[in-house]
């Protein structure tokens, strides 16, 4: 099993964590993220144009599980380590199972899951990116409210 974190664009750039105007800025931000957050998985930095990010769908926190040979086994528009681990356990157990009939067959599922939302903790992370990151998000919240 291999785990990779693909570093993309900054979703909420700010004074301290700026948007990427060069690959050097992007690499510097990726190093800072690794060191501050303590990411231990290998980090793959996407190119400046986001080629890998575009190929997989551009959302800010997606996770894909890809099987040997390159077939997508699961996708999620939000990362939950617990869900990924539960899926992997289920998938491996299912794949290896030998029922009385002697065979198993794959089938597709699609589900809605729930994640914890801690708005204040998220706002704190925005402020870490810089004051304007927080202000811009609050402005975006007003725009979303007006659209509803």
């Amino acid at each position, binding site marked *: 099993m291999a785990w990779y974190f693909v570093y993309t664009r900054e979703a909420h750039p700010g004074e301290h964590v700026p948007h990427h105007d060069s690959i050097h800025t992007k690499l510097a931000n990726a190093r800072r993220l690794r060191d501050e957050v303590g990411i231990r998985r290998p980090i793959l930095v996407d190119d400046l144009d986001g080629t890998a990010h575009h190929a997989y769908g551009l959302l800010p926190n997606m996770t894909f599980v890809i099987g040997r040979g390159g077939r997508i086994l699961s996708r999620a528009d939000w990362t939950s380590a617990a869900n990924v681990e539960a899926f992997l356990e289920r998938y491996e157990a299912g794949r290896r199972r030998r029922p009385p009939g002697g065979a198993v067959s794959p089938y*597709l599922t699609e589900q809605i899951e729930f994640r914890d939302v801690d708005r204040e903790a998220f706002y704190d992370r925005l402020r870490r990116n810089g004051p304007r990151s927080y202000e811009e998000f609050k402005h975006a919240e007003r725009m979303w409210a007006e659209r509803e």
Partner: protein
Amino acid sequence: MTTYNYETFDGYVASGAEQREFAAWPDLLHAGEPAPAIIGTLLEDGSQVALSSVWQRRTVVVEFGSFT
């Protein structure tokens, strides 16, 4: 600088790009389909890693993200 690397989040939202990108997700890449081959720079040593070379041998979990 490209539009992809937007400077301001509210500008990105106001442009409609955020709505378009989230709306596109349901029709993209599903389980059972071939994964796009991508290449990234390994932060640890600067080498180029092709995920297709990794998934030839192992299952791969790929998480996308940034600071937030």
